[in-house]
């Protein structure tokens, strides 16, 4: 326990880095994921094809490989070597198709009759989406989106292998200093992760129940 308390500043530094990774790549993935989802339902065939290929590739390769690309190929393509930025780019790219799929399945979850009814009373395409589909779709989308964010929280740990000093990397530093307290240090790291994932999970479960009643 004393190993954690005396190294608390280092721990908090790592936790802060993890939060930064989570926040920046979460925002990035939400934006990019929404764009990809929009591309996948767009009437323009080229956009649909591009979004489909993008989704299939990124969903079927490991995150480690994506981060490898960001850490070793982006500098070659002329990006300034800043590993934190590379990790954010990699996590954003990797998470965006999952966000897109969550959004798409939420929108698809709105009963077809809703859209038909909206069209039948003469609403336009924009009105149908804005007033009928979106308000219902977003409710259904939020729980799965939160689940993707929870997964992202856990995925930030992979950045530790690519020169980003977040929670896992700091724990390895501290273990090097205090080899006798490995169990306590790793449990401390686990605690910090649970501090993010458990509240998010509870919110997701709560919303899920509410949505279920709503339906």
């Amino acid at each position: 326990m004393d190993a954690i308390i005396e190294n608390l500043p280092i721990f908090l530094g790592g936790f802060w880095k993890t939060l930064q990774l989570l926040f920046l790549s979460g925002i990035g993935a939400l934006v990019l994921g929404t764009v990809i989802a929009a591309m996948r339902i767009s009437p323009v065939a080229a956009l649909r094809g591009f979004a489909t290929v993008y989704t299939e590739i990124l969903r079927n390769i490991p995150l480690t490989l994506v981060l490898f690309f960001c850490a070793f190929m982006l500098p070659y393509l002329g990006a300034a070597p800043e590993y934190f930025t590379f990790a954010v780019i990699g996590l954003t790219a990797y998470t965006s198709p999952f966000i897109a799929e969550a959004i798409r399945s939420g929108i698809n979850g709105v009963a077809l009759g809703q859209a038909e009814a909206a069209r039948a009373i003469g609403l336009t395409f924009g009105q149908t989406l804005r007033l009928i589909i979106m308000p219902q779709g977003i409710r259904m989308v939020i729980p799965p989106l939160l689940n993707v964010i929870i997964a992202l929280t856990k995925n930030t740990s992979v950045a530790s292998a690519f020169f980003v000093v977040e929670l896992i990397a700091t724990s390895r530093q501290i273990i090097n200093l205090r080899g006798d307290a490995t169990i306590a240090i790793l449990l401390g790291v686990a605690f910090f992760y649970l501090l993010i994932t458990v509240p998010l999970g509870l919110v997701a479960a709560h919303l899920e129940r509410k949505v279920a009643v709503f339906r």
Partner: protein
Amino acid sequence: MSNNVLFDVPGPRARRTSRIASIVTSVVIVGGLFYLYLALEAPRVTANGTETPGMFDPTRWDVITDGRMWNAILVRGLLLGTLKMAAVAAVFALLIGVIFSFARTARSKWIRIPAAVLLDFFRGMPVLLLMLFILLIIGPGAYWAGVAGLAIYNGAVIGEALRSGIQSLPKGQRESGLAIGLTPVQTRLIVEFPQAFRQMLPIIIAQLVVLLKDTSLAYIIAYPELLNIGLRQLPTTYGNRYFFTFFFIVLIVYLTVNLLLSWVARIVARRTASGRKTRRTGPTAGKDEKVGVDTAAMNAVMPDSS
């Protein structure tokens, strides 16, 4: 939602606009890819004046005719590294999942509540942390640390899936099992569990794809799997100029294996879905009977799909 409900059938003008947009975006996408190709293809001049060839230069690709390289990637990396770890971890994950799902639905709260806490603990944890935990504290070597980390984490996820499968079964299943004189344990094993497993099979297979992808985390704990061999060992043996080539090969191998598995998952999902449909249209199917998968419960177990 099919698009044709959302807007009227496009007339000639709308069709033309959409066709033009399609062509313009195609040009933009192809242009972007071509730019990327040129950027990779161009030779580089390093600071001390030596010129390194572009990424598609034959001197960077002559390695693909080398049988030993393919042996290293496909046999040592994929088969004896990644797939061996994934297969063993999958078996243990299924076992752990079954045990968790039983513990989680046990009648005694002395079993149920600790199981729930443990499940949430393991599910809220990065797999990498579990692997490190086992590696540094129990110390069974990188292979077993990787297998155990993957098995525990994915076991927890599969356990949660099976639990929601068991709980989404109609109550009558359990009641009729008890009514014909089976003990509660027999009812769970013979009546409820097989149905829950069948219903959750698509999710379980999807989770196994995730498990396969996550074996790449073992790279970080220095286990020689596909990523480690392809992007660490081979560039050291053959020289760093082949890095891009090896990256490309590893990417293709992962894509092929995972797309194959996802394809199997989709077929299984369609089979179980159609199985349910025939059961539903049967004469006994009542409206209040809840045979289908509870989608809310499914979402609850999906988080780990990333």
